[in-house]
């Protein structure tokens, strides 16, 4: 393997506000290799690639392309350096044909474009690499996979020899993914250097030569793919094992509280994100939900909370006596993944946020702010929230304090079912412990807690039972006390189910 480097990053740092999206990241892409950049959501993969492709400018650090230090100030600069990026969200113009989209943005030569020549060249390119494309088809008539092909050809046509693909398989079926991977291998043979961003472990093992893992904006390590296994990658991705010093009590008289039957839910794009999922959740226990992000966790919680209408199947709730009862008689608390964009109103103060779910309860025209204010004070005290002033907008609090307010409010409605998504993502260790303790407290009170946590160690330590989602399907139900990380990891990737 040639040791010459196509791209090298040294100490690249990017801040958004006070948070470092990338913190002194070093990364190297060798010529003619496929490098996988692996990391959980929010680990800084896309930000890093956006700096290579000229969308963001790094706050600190150096970028070398083919050994020369460069400054990439715009996508045009990147393109001139032979770097092409295929974004997760396509940047194509719907009403134009593939051909027109490919030409778009290239300075026309004197006398204008010779479209027939370009058409031939596109067809030649697609034959070389094994694409299938109709250059005159309009984008709006294309499937997702065809659109992606157009994006890749666009980049190749412009002569890019370094390709960056941001989660290219997120929108593809397994068959389409296989096809894409064959194309990528073909491009590698033609001497292209490729970075593929992904959080799917089996893809890393399948396609890449080397893998760099990002964790919390930092480079957590680089390795040759042939030395890696799913388990090793998982460990690199989720980090050191944190021992939770939380006493896990046995569930007290668990009884059936909620039954999910054959549930299918569509995501925003109308693609099924959750497929025929069936499980039971009990009172007084914590049911963990494991899965690679985007496996249907969001849709599962939102449909239980009544925010997303199921396509198929149903969700039944039960009283302590085991009688079925209506959703409206069941108190469902929900701590969503998007705290400030869904669970809270970023621009409002704590009191106004605390009354978000209950403002309409009192009689009369006017909002009653006295009780929410008292409740806010109570939450602040109980969960030791640090707040300089009750009147400041909630978005100026730290992530941990924001989450405590959100959880505190949801718990205050004395729920029958408590749904929490990534409750400690981005939180420091102390805040995390406060949250975990509170979840345990709820369990003791007989609440049915359903909890999505990406950190498998934590999930195994806090849950009583774990359901595993893989590609929207339920791939297993585990007893958290007897299962282990490796087993869950294999269920997450769907490897176990095939055996």
């Amino acid at each position, binding site marked *: 393997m040639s040791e010459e480097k196509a791209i090298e990053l040294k*100490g690249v*740092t990017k801040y958004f*506000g006070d948070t470092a999206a990338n913190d002194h990241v070093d990364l190297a892409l060798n010529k003619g290799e496929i490098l996988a950049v692996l990391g959980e959501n929010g680990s800084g993969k896309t930000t890093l690639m956006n700096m290579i492709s000229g969308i963001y*400018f790094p*706050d*600190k*650090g150096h970028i070398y392309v083919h*050994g*020369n*230090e*460069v*400054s990439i*100030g715009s996508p045009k600069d990147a393109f001139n350096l032979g770097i092409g990026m295929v974004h997760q969200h396509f940047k194509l113009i719907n009403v134009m044909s593939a051909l027109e989209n490919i030409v778009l943005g290239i300075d026309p030569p004197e006398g204008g474009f010779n479209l027939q020549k370009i058409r031939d060249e596109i067809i030649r390119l697609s034959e070389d690499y094994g694409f299938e494309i109709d250059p005159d088809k309009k984008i709006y008539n294309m499937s997702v996979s065809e659109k992606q092909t157009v994006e890749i050809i666009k980049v190749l046509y412009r002569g890019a020899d370094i390709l960056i693909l941001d989660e290219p398989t997120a929108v593809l079926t397994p068959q389409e993914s296989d096809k894409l991977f064959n194309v990528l291998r073909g491009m590698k043979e033609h001497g292209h250097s490729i970075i593929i961003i992904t959080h799917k472990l089996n893809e890393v093992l399948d396609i890449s030569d080397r893998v760099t893992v990002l964790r919390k904006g930092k480079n957590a390590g680089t390795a040759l793919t042939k030395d890696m296994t799913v388990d090793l990658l998982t460990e690199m991705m989720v980090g050191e094992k944190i021992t939770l010093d939380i006493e896990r009590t046995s569930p007290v008289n668990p009884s059936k509280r909620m039954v999910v039957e054959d549930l299918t839910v569509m995501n925003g794009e109308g693609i099924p994100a959750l497929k025929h999922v069936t499980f039971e959740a009990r009172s007084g226990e914590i049911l963990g939900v494991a899965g690679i992000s985007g496996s249907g966790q969001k849709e599962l919680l939102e449909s239980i*909370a009544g*925010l997303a209408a199921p396509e198929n199947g149903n969700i039944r709730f039960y009283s302590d006596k085991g009688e079925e009862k209506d959703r409206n008689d069941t108190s469902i608390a*929900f701590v*969503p993944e*998007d705290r400030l*964009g*869904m*669970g*809270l*109103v*970023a*621009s*409002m103060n704590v009191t*106004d946020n605390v*009354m*978000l*779910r209950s*403002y*309409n309860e009192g009689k009369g*025209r*006017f*909002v009653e702010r006295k009780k929410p204010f008292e409740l806010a004070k109570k939450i602040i005290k109980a969960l030791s929230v640090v707040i300089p002033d009750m009147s400041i907008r909630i978005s*100026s609090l730290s992530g941990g304090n924001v989450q405590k307010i959100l959880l505190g409010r949801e718990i205050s409605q004395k729920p029958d079912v408590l749904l929490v998504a990534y409750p400690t993502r981005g939180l420091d260790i102390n805040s995390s412990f406060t949250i975990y303790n509170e979840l345990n407290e709820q369990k003791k009170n007989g609440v049915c807690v359903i909890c999505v946590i990406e950190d498998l160690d934590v999930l195994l330590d806090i849950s009583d039972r774990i359901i595993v989602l893989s590609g929207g399907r339920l791939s297993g139900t585990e007893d958290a006390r007897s299962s282990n990380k490796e087993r869950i990891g294999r269920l997450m990737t769907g490897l176990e189910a095939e055996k």
Partner: protein
Amino acid sequence: MNSEKKKIKAPAFHVEKREGISFRKACAIRATAVVLSLIVCAIVIVLITGQNPLEVYGGIIDGAVGTSRRFWVTVRETVILLLIAVGLVPVFRMKFWNIGAEGQILMGATASAALMIYIKDSIPNFLLILIIMIGGMVVGMLWAFIPAFFKANYNTNETLFTLMMNYIAMQIVNCLIVIWENPVGSNTVGIINGATKAGWFPSIFGNAYALNIIITLVATVCISVYMKMDKHGYEIDVVGAGTRTALYAGINVKKVICRTMMLSGALCGLAGSVIVSGASHTISTSTAGGRGFTAIIVAWMSKFNPIAMLAISAFLSFMQQGAIQIASQFGLNENASDIITGILLFFLIGCEFFINYRMERTDRGDTEDKAS
């Protein structure tokens, strides 16, 4: 490492969002903006007209508040502008981009004119005025409901929709002018009920514009209370923050959109009534006179604070009235004052950027890296 290392050109400055700014610093930035804009205006005045800028400024002041009559006209214009801006507050807090106030005013004005023309002095004046105000509100409300309904149910673009409704309103007025023409052949409606003054706002304590002022003040207080304390006001803010949050909070987003837009339309319609019954006593396609757009600036620049809205309405009306004066005094046309107002607004709105963001020198971090 590389002998032919190219010179790195990084942007010298980058922009960063401020976490917060002290009230004093914000005021200082705004004051600087006003001073700068007056200097630029002065240069423009000298370059274009060759007049002494101080004299032109003096003319503006004279035209706006020079005599008692001029002063009260400025007040009249101020309260109308304020009333419209107040009407726009709820929809803009909801992040609903209603730029159709112009049409809503015009429709309210049309309803008022129709009531004045057809009812005349057949009923007591106070009753007629009450009917006119209600009529203006109802028609403005219905006019605003149309784009709201389509936004709520079909997610149409409210900006285009409300804008186009303005032109429809204008053509309706054009048609009605043909019917209501007085005297025949003038192609205008003329002063309605000039002899009987039926439907005209009465003088209170000898002031012809007292009712205008009272209506506006009542509306301003009501909307402030509505936004701050009413459950509806809270719902509007949540919907404005994002429909996902609103859905999560169990708010019926469609209902809130329609209700809020109707409220807004009603107030703009009422402003139309005030213009017709309380000021012009006639109707034409220019009855709204661009106030529906100016009020957008008033509402956003003041960040929906009622006191600030009053101040900005007064400032803009002051400039407007001053313009009429300098137009005749210096033989300029009225666009001269539009230029001055434009420059002032440019600086005032532009300085908000420096209040929300700060410029930072780019730090490439080389020194720090070596140290660590």
